[in-house]
């Protein structure tokens, strides 16, 4: 017995109830698919009585057409809904999911940027030991023995090792380099240095310096001004003025402090530059003949300039960091910002 009406009713009701594309797909398979229920009817037609065959064929065809149509309509409707739903639920303001990216220490980034600028001007990068002998840290650099000039830098001495100190500056590397290399010399030396000081927002027991040295036949103060002006403008990305003031370091003669116009207020005076419009950024000078001699070179023949800057301070100026101790705190809320 083939009950087409019943099948039709059931199918139409199911199609009506179907609310997902997945269900429609199932219904398509169940009713009008290759092994579906409508196909079953066609398969059974030959067994029916002769007079019924034509009628059955006609009705089955009609049913097939109808179901095909209904399913198709329902599918289109559902597809449209789903699409609309997707568009509606799209919210570009939902928070993004961060990839797991790490970060480099701001002093690493600064060291790279700073040395890159000098490399661009033809300087090579060199390094030296953190634990130094008194000779390299002081004597060779023309610090008189038992003189208050040695107290300019609070020194950490190594126990049990005569004459060993934690280097107070990167300048010993100048000597080490000149001992091994003939001029012309153009080098910069990044590195950690140590001062035996009580720490506060602007003083640390260890911090970083970048040392520079240029030795040739005819290098002058005027050349130094040119190199350092280019450097400061490159690092601070702008129109920065530079001025030299007299100073004293045992290892340079003449010696100067180098100020740059305040990058925060453009030289008009602010709290960063204590209203002076200038920021002290480095110490420098023409290498003292004794230093050249102590390195095994002839000071009659060679001359040049040396400079040293506190990298921590430069980075603090550049990024507006107000406490040097943050650099060494391991504080992720700080480090992750870089």
């Amino acid at each position, binding site marked *: 017995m083939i009950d087409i009406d019943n099948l039709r009713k059931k199918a139409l009701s199911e199609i009506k109830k179907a609310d997902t594309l997945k269900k429609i797909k199932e219904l398509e398979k169940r009713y009008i698919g290759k092994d579906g229920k409508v196909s079953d009817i066609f398969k059974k037609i030959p067994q029916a009585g002769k007079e019924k065959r034509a009628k059955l064929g006609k009705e089955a065809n009609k049913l097939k057409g109808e179901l095909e149509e209904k399913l198709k309509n329902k599918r289109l409707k559902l597809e449209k809904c789903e699409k609309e739903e997707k568009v509606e639920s799209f919210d570009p303001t939902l928070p993004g999911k961060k990839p797991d990216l790490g970060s480099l*220490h701001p002093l690493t980034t600064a060291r790279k940027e700073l040395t890159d600028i000098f490399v661009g001007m033809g300087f090579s990068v060199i390094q030296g030991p953190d634990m130094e002998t008194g000779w390299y840290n002081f004597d060779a650099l023309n610090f008189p023995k038992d003189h208050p000039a040695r107290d300019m830098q609070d020194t950490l001495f190594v126990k049990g090792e005569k004459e060993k100190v934690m280097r107070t500056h990167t300048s010993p590397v100048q000597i080490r380099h000149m001992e091994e290399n003939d001029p012309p010399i153009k080098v910069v030396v990044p590195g950690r240095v140590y001062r035996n000081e*009580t720490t506060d927002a602007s003083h640390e027991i*260890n911090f970083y310096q970048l040392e520079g040295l*240029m030795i040739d036949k005819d290098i002058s*103060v005027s050349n130094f001004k040119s190199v350092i002006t280019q450097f400061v403008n490159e690092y601070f990305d702008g129109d920065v003025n530079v001025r030299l003031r*007299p100073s004293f370091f*045992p290892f340079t003669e003449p010696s100067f402090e180098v100020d740059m116009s305040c990058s925060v207020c453009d030289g008009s005076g602010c709290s960063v530059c204590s209203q002076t419009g200038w920021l002290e950024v480095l110490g420098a000078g023409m290498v003292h003949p004794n230093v050249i001699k102590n390195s095994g070179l002839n000071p009659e023949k060679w001359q040049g300039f040396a400079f040293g800057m506190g990298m921590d301070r430069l980075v603090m100026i550049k990024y507006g960091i107000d406490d040097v101790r943050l650099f060494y705190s391991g*504080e992720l809320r700080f480090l992750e910002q870089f």
Partner: protein
Amino acid sequence: MKFSYNWLNSFFEEDLPKPQKLADKLMMRFFEVEEVKKVGDDALIDIDILPNRASDCFSHLGVAREIAAIYNLSLKEPEIEFKSGSKELTDFVDLKIKNELTPRYVLRGIKGIEIKETPEFIKKRLEVCGLQSINNIVDITNYVMLEMGQPLHAFDGGKVGDLIQVRAAKKDEKIITLDEEEKSLDGSILVIADDKEPIGIAGIKGGKGTEIDEKTDLIYLEAANFDGKTIRKGSKKLKLQTDASIRFSHGLDPELAEKASRRAIKLMEKYANGKPLKGSLDLYPDPVTLKTIDLSIKKTESLLGVKISEEKIIKILESLGFEVKKESDLEVKIPTERRDISIEEDLIEEIGRLYGYENIESKKPKAEVEATKKPEDLFWEDRLREVFKASGFTEAYNYTFIDEKVKEIFGYDDLVEMKNPVSAQYRYLRPRLIPHLIKNIKDNEKRFEDIKIFEIGKVFSKKEEISVGAIASNLNFREMKGVLNSLLTELNISDVGYERSSNSWAGEKAAKVLVGNQEIGQIGEVSKELTEKMKLESKPIVFQLKLEKIVKLASKTKRYKKFSRFPVAMKDVSVLVPVKVNFEEVLTLANKAAGEDLIETDLFDLYQGEKIPEGTKNLGLRFHFQAEDKTLSKEEIDKLLEKIISSLEAKSGWKVRKK
């Protein structure tokens, strides 16, 4: 050092520019001015006099000389002439010095002095410079020190025996100083003594016993020149730094002693109504001679990089009180107070700063083109940093120092110790990065769940070396090992192996990192003992590597390896093995059995638990088969898989299930 503006002004007929303007100029021509402050009708100018100029510029006269040179003014020297009475100093006292550490000792006397209020102008000037008025005599000695830079000492002549000597202190000799402190001395310290006992610590502080008081009538005034090194050492040893010791430590001009002694007596005659004794005792065995330095105009131009006329150069030098004679070069005679000038470059500095560095134009140096170099260490360090960053690690810079507590917790011995740390926090140099890395976790774990930190820095044990360290609070051993492997792969280091090996910070769950047979570092989970001692909530995984070894193994060159264009077939099996079996053992067997067509083996599952017999673990393995030269047929692949399985099952207690 603090200076009184009015005092500086008193050396000149003309009015000086206003204090701030003067300070700005001094800043560009002389030294840094730290503060300008109005004090009553005067102003305080605080100048950072650096050590080379302490010998002449720890004094108003010295700074006035600079001002004279800068503004081209003429300077009035302080008055030093006085009228002596008829009594001879030598009738009262004799002087005995057998000591090379006293280049000069000048003693003068003045009698009939009145101890009274100090004149107002002296009091005010001292106050601006930070000194309190005591009485007219003491104030005058301080005044002359601030004026001329020569420390002076006034003894109450009535309390001193008839001999004054300078000698080394005897061992454990005692003296009570003016501030009523008893000091125990030794042979490295110089004392002023009479025939009985010390009456002052030379160059550092006077003694209580000969102090000026209301009844003082006779004064012996000492203006001496002591060896700077000796005074510096003595002052450090006694932990007693005074205005006098600071000046002597820097070294003073012996010529100054005589002038300053006259100046003080002059002022005592005037403001204490005393009658100066005739003559002086002046022991000065080896008078200083004037230095002459040759100055080349050419060298000056070469060093400063600017052409300054000879005329201008001479003018600058003369403004500073130097005598200049024109020979082929310039011959420059240096005044004795300028102890900082000893070579040509010193003179060039004087010319440069007074000419004005702002007047020197910048010129690019002539230079040859040469390839720049970078140290190997730094190159590889930076490569590692990039990989760490890409792996989600944050870079920390920690202190080079550790304290006693860390030393104990980690059981370190043989540490490099500091002799004079300003705080116990900085007592030892770190021998490893690990202690600080663990502290980084501790400091951050309250706010962050998933902490990954690395550091590349110096560590110190027998030698100074660079260590690479990383820590992660929330990774498991395999994830951390993955990070380590990526680092090494990026540096083109192959043949990396791991060998179980306990160590002090990780206990049992640790391994050596090997390249070939060479150990390059360790990896492991921080031991329970340590996490408890450090009060850590998480159980971090750490690895540390020696940079030196990595740098030797790392290579900048990569070789392209032709890849096979034929398909890869994957087969999964699971192997049940005793728990003690290492993955590597399984891998080695599989590789040996299948040969080169087995290109990769993944461990996609590792199970140990209730569903399998106790004492076993289940490894889920995925084999990747691929040939270089053809597509492997189904039969070939099955054959390879069978070979692997039978080789694994040959081990007793191993069971394989195909999937």
